[in-house]
């Protein structure tokens, strides 16, 4: 089954700029690494898949929009604790408060960020913020995960965590953008080089 399919897609930015994207089809449960130089459109492609950028052409999404999680290269955290940032992502799905807190704690723990729960974004390094953002994406238990340069600010332990996430993806569709995807390339059955 198709998770994402792009045909003749042109992304349109707020400033009026456009970018043509390569045609592509990604199956459910597939792990795809997007590589390419800066400006090749990796991040834009992820944003189009996540429905965050306006586009012309045909974009097919096999997953429900709520089941797709996106983590940007420089994730934005709201001015509240790391715990609240993660819990926010599951605030509107009808879970009881206790269940929300349990799932939030589990997601932070999975990303090695339990000790960051009470900290505000100002008190987090880039790598720590990335861990919290990953937890915020995972807490929704998404069917598809779109990661933009996830290894960038992470230390060795954080890298191992992301690579573990890719390795143990189960049925989850994962698309990862990375300029130098050596570590990711070794795990991804399919690497798409955007030129």
């Amino acid at each position, binding site marked *: 089954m198709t998770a994402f399919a792009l045909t003749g897609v042109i992304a349109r930015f707020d400033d009026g700029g456009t970018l043509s994207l390569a045609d592509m089809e990604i199956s459910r449960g597939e792990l795809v690494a997007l590589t390419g130089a800066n400006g090749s459109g990796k991040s834009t492609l992820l*944003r189009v898949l*996540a*429905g*965050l950028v306006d586009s012309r052409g045909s974009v097919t999404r096999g997953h429900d*929009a*709520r089941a797709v*999680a*996106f983590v*940007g290269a*420089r*994730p*934005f955290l*709201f*001015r*509240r604790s790391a715990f609240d940032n993660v819990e*926010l*992502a599951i*605030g*509107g799905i009808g879970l009881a408060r206790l269940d929300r807190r349990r799932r939030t704690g589990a997601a932070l723990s999975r990303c090695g960020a339990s000790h960051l729960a009470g900290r505000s974004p100002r008190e987090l390094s880039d790598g720590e913020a990335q861990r919290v953002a990953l937890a*915020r994406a995972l807490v929704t238990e998404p069917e598809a995960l779109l990661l933009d340069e996830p290894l960038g600010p992470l230390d060795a332990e954080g890298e191992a965590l992301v690579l573990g996430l890719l390795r143990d993806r189960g049925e989850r569709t994962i698309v990862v953008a990375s300029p130098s995807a050596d570590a990711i390339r070794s795990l991804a059955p399919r690497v798409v080089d955007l030129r």
Partner: protein
Amino acid sequence: MQGEGDVLSATWLSLAISAAAVAIAAVPGVPLGAWLGLSRSRWRAPIVLAARVGMSFPTVLIGLLVYGVVSRHGPLGRFELLFTPHAIVIGEVLLAAPMIVALGETATSSLDPRFRETVAALRLSRARAVWLACVERREAIGVALFAAFARCVTELGVALLVGGNLRGETRTLTTAIALETSRGDFDRAMRLGWVLVALAVGLNATTAILQRGTSRP
């Protein structure tokens, strides 16, 4: 004005009326301003323009408008609001609201672009996004509220036209100054003026302290 009690009464009334007006104007004004700052709606530009024009609207014209509405033959005439503090509150709500909307819009439109993307990526509702934007820019919104409060405390046109300057009932600091000046008691008017200046300095100092917080990335 006869004694210090009158000065206190006028000061208290000025503060209470202005606080009530800003509180009422903030209820729709803050979320509307935040929504405008985040919105790409075609209504955004005309609403923001209207709010900015409203910020510079002469207070005496707003007073005149409210007078027409609350006077005996106006649409709200049966409520007998003319020459009551309620009428001044209505007028000052019209003074405060455009300022809160316009400055609120400015505050949230300058949010980090990643804010909007994150809200969209998390599929948060519009109401939730507006609330989060207000929290993110709370110092700037506080500045907007204080600026609106300062405008209300120092305005004369509305208070004079629809308040009627009734001693102990609708006499505010600004109408008291106007009265003392018309009576020729310039010294007393100046003393009341200094009270107003002290209030303005206090409000501006508070605004400046809040503004320090708005410079965060």
